[in-house]
């Protein structure tokens, strides 16, 4: 018993203190996977904000886009052309979704739309495998001139190992967020998007039809998904296993709130770091693999204190 308590409350912190370099390393890795969670969460937020749809398919879109990219390249298409084409595919997908799912189901209860995105998930999985086969693929990092190798930075008498690809990921992520921020706050579309988030009528008044907006956000989400896919693919490889990892974005959403972009980013970081630390310092105690749920528990605990999430505005219930 005492041993357990020691294991939980003392030992980990002792370790942190004695081997700070490991701590930093863990933090870094946490941050990196956090960035990727954040990107997926970003896709959710975009769509949820603009169309109120809880897009379960976001995870699959990540995989699907990556698959397409690699698949096209495998069939002898130059990397950048493949990239362009994949983006086009995501655009087509956005149109298709708007036409086939959103339009017929407009003003159905959220749960129905949620279910529909499930259908989409199944559909994309099946389609992806039909076209490119089920077996894992290797991301075409070098064709896309993604950096490889790593930096080694000495700290606290130890070393901090940083994969260049991770650094790149971090950078690209921040660029993308910046871009979206601009899109949202500086452009007419952005205003429309934010208007939709409040009320659909408002959006129309800005002079952009709901349909257009939906297409735009789904496309944006698609592009984000593609980026995520590339990054992720570059670190591990491209397969539908990613789908489960995509679910990690959900606790991020809880932390960050379903409608807040900064929330998604910060949430992503917290979750990423939190679970890495948890795994590294507390994991052995509980038998490893706690990654799979630790994030959720963090989120859950958090929820009990702030139901509206990190940046979500407080809800006053009226009658």
């Amino acid at each position: 018993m005492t041993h357990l308590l020691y294991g939980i409350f003392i030992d980990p912190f002792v370790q942190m203190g004695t081997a700070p370099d490991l701590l930093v390393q863990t933090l870094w890795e946490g941050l990196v996977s956090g960035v990727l969670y954040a990107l997926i969460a970003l896709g959710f937020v975009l769509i949820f904000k603009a169309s109120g749809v809880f897009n379960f398919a976001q995870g699959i879109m990540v995989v699907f886009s990556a698959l397409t990219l690699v698949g096209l390249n495998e069939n002898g298409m130059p990397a950048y052309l493949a990239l362009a084409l994949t983006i086009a595919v995501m655009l087509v997908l956005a149109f298709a979704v708007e036409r086939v799912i959103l339009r017929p189901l407009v003003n159905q209860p959220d749960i129905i739309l949620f279910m529909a995105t499930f259908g989409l998930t199944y559909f994309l999985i099946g389609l992806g495998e039909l076209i490119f086969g089920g077996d894992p693929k290797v991301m075409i990092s070098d064709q896309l001139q993604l950096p490889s190798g790593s930096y080694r930075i000495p700290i606290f008498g130890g070393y901090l190992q940083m994969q260049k690809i991770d650094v790149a990921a971090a950078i690209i992520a921040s660029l993308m967020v910046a871009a979206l921020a601009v899109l949202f706050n500086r452009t007419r579309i952005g205003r429309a998007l934010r208007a939709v988030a409040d009320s659909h009528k408002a959006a129309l008044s800005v002079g952009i039809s709901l349909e257009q907006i939906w297409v735009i956000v789904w496309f944006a989400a698609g592009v984000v998904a593609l980026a995520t896919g590339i990054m992720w693919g570059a670190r591990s490889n491209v397969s539908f296993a990613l789908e489960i990892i995509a679910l990690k974005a959900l606790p991020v959403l809880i932390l960050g709130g379903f409608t807040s972009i900064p929330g998604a980013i910060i949430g992503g970081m917290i979750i990423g770091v939190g679970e890495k630390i948890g795994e590294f310092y507390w994991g052995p105690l509980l038998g490893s693999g706690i990654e799979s749920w630790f994030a959720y528990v963090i989120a859950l605990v958090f929820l009990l204190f702030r139901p509206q999430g990190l940046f979500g505005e407080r809800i006053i219930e009226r009658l």
Partner: protein
Amino acid sequence: MLYREVGQYKTSYGADQALFPILQDRIGITVILLLAFVGVPLTASSFTLDSILIPVLVLSLAATGLNLLTGFTGLLSLGTGGFMGVGAFACYKLTTFFPNVNIIVLILCSGFFAAAVGTVFGLPSLRIKGFYLAVATLAAQFFLSWCFIRIPWLYNYNVSASIEVPTKTLFGVPVTGPTASPVTRYLIVLSIVALLTLVAANLVRGRIGRTWMAVRDMDLAAELIGIRLYQTKLLAFAVSSFYCGVAGAMMVFLWLGNAESESFNINQSFLILFMVIIGGLGSLLGSFLGAALIWGLPIVLRAAPAFFGLSIQSATAEQASFVIVGALIIFFLIVEPHGLARLWQIGKQKLRVWPFPY
């Protein structure tokens, strides 16, 4: 057209609130039950029983459970698989602790363990709503499936890390384990499902059901009427998980015969959720229709190519079925967002006013 309701007047509230107030419905349900209990066992092949009827019944029960929570109380849950797992493993442990206790009793008991766990994970439901809650239940799902893998005690430290169902007998007849005949297993599953469905029907048409629906439709108003939201929601979680638990236990003991944690993973939860949505939220009948459709569809799709004399390697067929199922789900949602149950209702109404349209 089939309905002839003239002269079916009610002289008491009892008659008016009966489960099936219309004579023709009473006849219909009797016929169905007769077929299920007598006709099927006499005729059905063990394939039909093992890979269609038993699964559909078991899944229907799980769907019913989820429907009580999501359809009637409006609490979206993605933890169904986990709760089923709790039932299954609880039942397994019980059989090891009480080897001589009647297996059916154990199956039902294991429901209570699921109920307990379900209640615990229902606790957040007071503070958080909608998709937030869904994600919370997802936590339950992941945590539980982690437990199923990481806690060997649950599967008695089997090397296979899975449940092997011992052979149990009822009145000398083996009902679980490899030697149990499909018919016996079918009959037991059927009885349990029928019984619990009746219970569910009673719950939803009475006070408790109404409080659930009240919370679903307008929780604030419900509270001002004097309904205790917390109790109501937790009760819903408990009852729902109980059903899922029993379903899980039956799934392992009366259907699969063995199971590892995979059987209770997130996908299972989603599958059940599909059944409820496609079948019809807030309709017990829907749970059955949904289960039948979602389970039946892939079987049909797999059979289809052979039927048309095409030869496709199974992998492709598998992927194709994914595409089709996905498309069909979307299709159904668009055609009738309220599910098959609603379709049935509409049809019934048409029959009642035949030959008029209304």
